[in-house]
C-alpha cells in the first residue's frame, strides 16, 4: 500500500521504510515552536523533568507574538519567563519586540521551515508550514516541553483526504476563499485527525501566500495537517528565504485516501464564514440584506502577508473607510511591515483612514488591539469566529479574504470589491 506525502515524511523521521494510517510512531523533530502564551506553561512542565536541557538550541523557536508589546503586567511576566528561558538555554531563534512577527508568517520568512521537515508548535495554526511541503502540526505545551527536551514526539499516523485543485480563480478570489469553501463543504470536524493533501494543476495559480492561508486553516476543519506538493514556486520561495536543505516527498500513486474532492477554482466566489463557526459559509452573492459592520481587521497568521496587504491596498486606494467603521491593518512581521512601507501600502492605508499596528495576534483571539463590545460586528481576515472570540460574547466575527474585508471597510457592510467598481 502506498503512502501519502504526510506518511512519507513521518516514516522518514521515524526511521521506518513504511507507515500506515493508525500506526503509532515516534518521530524526530526539525523544529519545536512556542509563543508567549503557550511557552510559559511548557517551561513550567520542563522544570518538572529530570532532564532540563534542550535537545538542540538551533531547533527551537520561541516567538513572542500574542500579547506583545505586553498588554498588561501578567503578559509581561509571561514574556519575561520565556525571555529568561531563552537566554539561559541560549536559544538561537528567540524573537522579541523589534524582531518578532506573527509566528506562522515569521518562521517561513526566516527560512526556519522547509519541505520535508517535521515541525510541532504549541499553537494550533502550526499547520501553516504544510504550504512548503512540510509536516507541521499544532500540539499543546506539555508536548512542546517534551519536544524541547527529547527532540521527538509521538504521532498517530493520519489517514488523509485529497483535494484536487483545478482551474484558475477569478479576480478577487484568493486562498482564503478556497479554504473557507472547503471548510463550508466538509465542516469544522470534516478532516478530524486527518491530513488534508492539496494537489492538482490549479495550484500553480495559488501564490505561496495563498497556500500559507489554506494550510493555516486546515485546523479549522479539524485536520492534523494540511500539505501541498513542492513546485517551482515553493522552491523559489525556499531558496529566497532559507539556506537549509529541503527534501521533497511526493505521494505514491497508490496512496490511500479516505475521501477525495475536486475544487474547480474558476467556480469559486468570495466566501464569508458567518458567526459562530468557520463552516457557516456563504458566497458573497448568497448574502441577502445588508450585514452592517463596526470593525475590520486585516492581518493575522492567516492573512497578514504581503499579498494580503497589497490586495487590501489595491481596494482601499483612493477610497475612505466608512465613517463609524474602525479598520485595523496588522502586517504579520517586521519584514512585511517594511516591505509594505517601501511599496507605499501603508500610506494608502493611512490615507484611507485605517490604523496600522505593530505585528501581533492581538485582536484575532480577543487579546487586545481591537476588542469588540456587545452587539458589535467585525469582518476579519482571521481564522476563527467562535462565540466571544474577538471580545464580548454578544459580538460577531465574519471571516473573509483581505479583498472582501477591505471593500467592506469602505461600504460599511459586507461587500464584494466589484461594488467599488473594481
Amino acid at each position, binding site marked *: 500500500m502506498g503512502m501519502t506525502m504526510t506518511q512519507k515524511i513521518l516514516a522518514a523521521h521515524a526511521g521506518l521504510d513504511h507507515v500506515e494510517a493508525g500506526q*503509532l510512531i515516534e518521530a524526530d523533530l526539525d523544529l519545536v515552536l512556542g509563543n508567549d*502564551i503557550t511557552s510559559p506553561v511548557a517551561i513550567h512542565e520542563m522544570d518538572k523533568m529530570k532532564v532540563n536541557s534542550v535537545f538542540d538550541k538551533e531547533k527551537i523557536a520561541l516567538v513572542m507574538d500574542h500579547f506583545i508589546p505586553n498588554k498588561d503586567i501578567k503578559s509581561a511576566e509571561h514574556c519575561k519567563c520565556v525571555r529568561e528561558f531563552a537566554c539561559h538555554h541560549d536559544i538561537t531563534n528567540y524573537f522579541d519586540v523589534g524582531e518578532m512577527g506573527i509566528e506562522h508568517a515569521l518562521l517561513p520568512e526566516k527560512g526556519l521551515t522547509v519541505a520535508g521537515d517535521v515541525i510541532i508548535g504549541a499553537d494550533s495554526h502550526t499547520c501553516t508550514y504544510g504550504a512548503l511541503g512540510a509536516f507541521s502540526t499544532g500540539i499543546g505545551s506539555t508536548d512542546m516541553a517534551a519536544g524541547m527536551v527529547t527532540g521527538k514526539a509521538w504521532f498517530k499516523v493520519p489517514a488523509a483526504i485529497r483535494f484536487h485543485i483545478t482551474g484558475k480563480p477569478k479576480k478577487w478570489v484568493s486562498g482564503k476563499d478556497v479554504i473557507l469553501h472547503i471548510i463550508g463543504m466538509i465542516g469544522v470536524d470534516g478532516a478530524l485527525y486527518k491530513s488534508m493533501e492539496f494537489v492538482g494543476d490549479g495550484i500553480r495559480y495559488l501564490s505561496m501566500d495563498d497556500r500559507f492561508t489554506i494550510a493555516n486553516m486546515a485546523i479549522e476543519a479539524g485536520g492534523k495537517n494540511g500539505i501541498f506538493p513542492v513546485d517551482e514556486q515553493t522552491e523559489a520561495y525556499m531558496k529566497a528565504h532559507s539556506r537549509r536543505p529541503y527534501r521533497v516527498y511526493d505521494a505514491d500513486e497508490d496512496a490511500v485516501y479516505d475521501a477525495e474532492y475536486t475544487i474547480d477554482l474558476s467556480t469559486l466566489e468570495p466566501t464569508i464564514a458567518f458567526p459562530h463557526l468557520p463552516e457557516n459559509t456563504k458566497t458573497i452573492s448568497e448574502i441577502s440584506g445588508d450585514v452592517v459592520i463596526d470593525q475590520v481587521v486585516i492581518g493575522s497568521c492567516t492573512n497578514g502577508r504581503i499579498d494580503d496587504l497589497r490586495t487590501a491596498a489595491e481596494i482601499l486606494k483612493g477610497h475612505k473607510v466608512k465613517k463609524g467603521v474602525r479598520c485595523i491593518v496588522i502586517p504579520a512581521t517586521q519584514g512585511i511591515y517594511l516591505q509594505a512601507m517601501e511599496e507605499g501600502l501603508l500610506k494608502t492605508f493611512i490615507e484611507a483612514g485605517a490604523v496600522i499596528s505593530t505585528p501581533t495576534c492581538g485582536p484575532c483571539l480577543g487579546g487586545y488591539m481591537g476588542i469588540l463590545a456587545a452587539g458589535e460586528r467585525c469582518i476579519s481576515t482571521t481564522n476563527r469566529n467562535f*462565540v466571544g472570540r474577538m471580545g464580548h460574547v454578544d459580538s460577531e466575527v465574519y471571516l473573509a479574504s483581505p479583498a472582501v474585508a477591505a471593500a467592506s471597510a469602505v461600504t460599511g457592510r459586507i461587500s464584494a470589491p466589484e461594488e467599488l467598481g473594481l
Partner: protein
Amino acid sequence: MQAKGSVFKYGDNVDTDVIIPARYLNSSDPAELAIHCMEDIDKDFVNNVKKGDIIVADKNFGCGSSREHAPIAIKAAGVSCVIAETFARIFYRNAINIGLPIIECPEASKGIQAGDEVEVDFDSGMIYDRTRGTEYKGQAFPEFMQKIIRAGGLVNYINEKN
C-alpha cells in the same frame, strides 16, 4: 481508577475559546483559569460544578486553539472526566498529557442527560448512568497512551524513561 459525579451536558463543537476565553490567557495558574472555565458558554458552570463532576458533550469537543489552558481549567475546576462523541485532536493529546481523563463514546454522549449521576471505570472503559440505569462501553486508549496515563502524564512518562 474511577470517576463519579453529576453531569454537565453540552452540544457540538465546544471550542477552547469558550472553555477558557483568551482574555484570561495572561495567566497560566490552574486555579485562576478554573474560575473562568466555560464562562462564555455556561456562566453558572463554575458556581455549580462540584469535585468529581463529569462533562458530557457531542462531537468535536475542544476544537480550536492548542491552548493547554483548556484541559487545565477543566481539571482544576474539579471535573473528573470528559465524555464526548469525538474530541478535537489537539485537545485529546493535551488532556492525556496533563492527566485529564477523556473518553470517546457516541452512545453515552447521546444517552446521558444533564444532571445524571454517572460513574466511569477507566480500566474497563465502562460508563454507568446510575440515574437512568444504563451502561455504555467507551473506547479504550491504545496501549501507548495507557502508558502515559498510567505514568500520570507525559512529563512523568519521560522521567520514567530517563
